[in-house]
């Protein structure tokens, strides 16, 4: 009998030695003459357990982690092919509390299936959303997305259905669907996990979007820092084309939708939608002045849907299970679930998909288990490099769009980076400005010049030079960048800086003393 063994091909799992583990399992199985099939799945997102090996048993999949190549012989000796006891055993995967307490809708298949197998995908409910969409009118599909309450998961949280409706309402010979996979925020990796672990869900979501708005061509704009996702996406695209889920006759419907991946070239700004469109056209990623909106004049001047990976990958389940099903998760105006990403100085980092409303404290301590260093958690940065730093006194805040806005923070793409009490927050404020200076597209002055002046002013404050005067100058500069920048890079870089001035001002004073 053949036993299925799952060893992730997810980039993070590979970064911890998953390839060597897979090789060792193959070698050991041959030596012991046992029949195994090694499936290279995505990651379940329990990253402190990676490389996490799973074995399919009659009782369900049993997890072992974190496995090193040197552990493989002892796993075979412990009869892990039947789920045998071993110090690395985590029991049934689905029963691991970190996973069991989650509500995985968008990431339901990530880490479960072979990411490039159409058969696996369809057997686990894949392409049901597209099948239903093809039986609906375009307006009905858009209405379903609108009714679900889905908002852009890339960071801007704009209602997806409204964007789609705008594109649908345009008369144009050519329309486009583009996927923003330029996941540049530090502390985020949910797009990467989806593309590496379940790319067909993204492909299905984009196909539905194309059918809904009348676009026949799609592009995935992927950051060059994700070579593993690039390989997996292309394998999945080929599989979808061969099985006629993509191409001139999608699922025999007579409708056309083509899709390809384009690589970025290391520019954070290309995660801004108009900059991404410029880059897709092969140009410098300088942002465009809005209006016109991309939904009206987007890629090559045509009406274009621009959505993030998680947003598009959530569409299939909405079409399959219905708007009601999806909007019943969540709270207030934050409907559905969000794949949160827990990173930085945390004991159990990973992907946590839950309905909106979980508190930061639950995320950091119940899931994260506190800091990796064992020291007190002093601050978390939520929403990437443009997000505010939140002090421990505000950890009871709920993780939803409105609650975070109410404390002057933002959710962004759902990344949470944890810092312990050794962090120098004055340096983090400096880094926010430095990062903006490195990544500014240069089009507008507040961002291009303001960020450089920001680094200089913070350096003077840290050095204790005319402290009060320079603190006033920094406050003014933040205001200018906020009000005067053309896009979110310059316009939001002040958020982390201002949050540090508000909650961690003592770090500027400490620096001034020496």
């Amino acid at each position: 009998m053949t036993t299925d063994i799952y060893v992730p091909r997810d980039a993070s799992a590979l970064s911890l030695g998953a390839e060597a583990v897979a090789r060792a399992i193959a070698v050991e199985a041959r030596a012991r003459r046992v029949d195994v099939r090694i499936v290279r799945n995505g990651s379940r997102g329990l990253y402190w357990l990676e490389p996490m090996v799973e074995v399919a048993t009659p009782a369900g999949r049993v997890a072992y982690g974190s496995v090193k190549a040197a552990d493989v012989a002892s796993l075979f000796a412990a009869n892990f092919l039947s789920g045998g006891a071993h110090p690395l055993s985590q029991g049934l995967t689905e029963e691991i509390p970190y996973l069991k307490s989650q509500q995985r809708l968008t990431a339901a298949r990530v880490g479960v299936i072979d990411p490039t197998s159409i058969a696996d995908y369809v057997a686990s409910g894949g392409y049901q959303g597209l099948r239903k969409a093809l039986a609906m009118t375009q307006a009905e599909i858009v209405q379903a997305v609108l009714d679900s309450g889905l908002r852009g998961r890339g960071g801007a949280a704009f209602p997806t259905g409204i964007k789609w409706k705008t594109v649908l309402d345009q008369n144009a010979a050519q329309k486009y669907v583009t996927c923003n996979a330029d996941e540049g925020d530090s502390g985020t990796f949910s797009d990467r996990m989806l593309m590496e672990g379940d790319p067909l869900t993204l492909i299905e979501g984009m196909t539905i979007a194309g059918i809904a708005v009348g676009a026949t061509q799609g592009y995935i704009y992927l950051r060059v820092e994700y070579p593993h996702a690039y390989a997996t996406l292309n394998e999945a695209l080929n599989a979808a084309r061969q099985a006629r889920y993509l191409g001139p006759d999608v699922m025999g419907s007579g409708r056309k939708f083509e899709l390809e991946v384009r690589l970025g070239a290391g520019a954070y700004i290309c995660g801004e939608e108009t900059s991404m469109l410029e880059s897709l056209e092969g140009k410098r990623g300088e942002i465009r002045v809005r209006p016109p909106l991309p939904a009206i004049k987007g890629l090559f001047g045509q009406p274009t849907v621009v959505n993030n990976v998680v947003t598009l990958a959530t569409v299939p389940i909405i079409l399959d299970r219905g708007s009601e099903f999806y909007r019943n998760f969540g709270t207030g105006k934050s409907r559905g679930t969000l794949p949160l990403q827990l990173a930085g100085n945390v004991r159990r980092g990973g992907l946590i998909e839950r309905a909106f409303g979980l508190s930061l404290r639950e995320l950091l301590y119940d899931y994260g288990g506190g800091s990796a260093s064992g020291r007190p958690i002093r601050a978390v940065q939520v929403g990437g490099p443009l997000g505010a730093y939140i002090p421990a006194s505000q950890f009871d805040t709920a993780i939803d769009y409105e609650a975070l806005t109410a404390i002057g923070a933002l959710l962004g793409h759902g990344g949470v980076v944890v810092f312990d009490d050794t962090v120098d927050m004055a340096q983090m404020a400096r880094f926010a400005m430095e990062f903006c200076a490195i990544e500014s597209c240069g089009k507008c002055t507040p961002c291009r010049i303001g960020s450089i002046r920001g680094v200089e002013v913070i350096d003077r404050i840290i050095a204790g030079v005319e402290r009060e005067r320079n603190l006033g100058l920094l406050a003014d500069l933040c205001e200018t960048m906020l009000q005067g920048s053309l896009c979110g890079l310059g316009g939001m870089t002040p958020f982390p800086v201002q949050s540090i001035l508000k909650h961690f001002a003592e770090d500027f004073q400490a620096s001034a003393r020496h």
Partner: protein
Amino acid sequence: MQPLTDIQRQAVLRIVAEHKSRPGPLIEILHGVQAGLGYVPAGAVPLIAAELNLSRAEVHGVVTFYHFFRDHPVGRHVVRLCRAESCQAMAGGALGEHAKKRLGIDFHETTADGAFTLEPVYCLGNCACSPAMMIDGDLFGRVTAQSFDDIVAARDRPT
């Protein structure tokens, strides 16, 4: 400006021909050139511009806008060390200092023997396993000074 060698010229023309008919092909072409030649030589700029009916300034502008493209050769192995917040929270700063010391170079520099180039990168998406780095497309997580030395030593072996 150093003129292209015949081999380089042929390679650039071949890559341009491969992508020319696609919409917005310039960045795809630059990726192809850098993958093939290791960098985008200044001499390739007028050639690509003429083939795509763009100005030299437009092509030069794109090459210089993106951090990933470079106009000079680099070492045999490119070490990209993450400098972003999540890695900073896990002593990425100290790892950067160690890397510079071990390789004897600063960021954006290449070792005298041409073995390594050290580049900063802002996020590799490996944030739950910080600090992270990538060498020649291979990703590493939870990197320590010791594991950095081991990884580098394994690449440095004469072949």
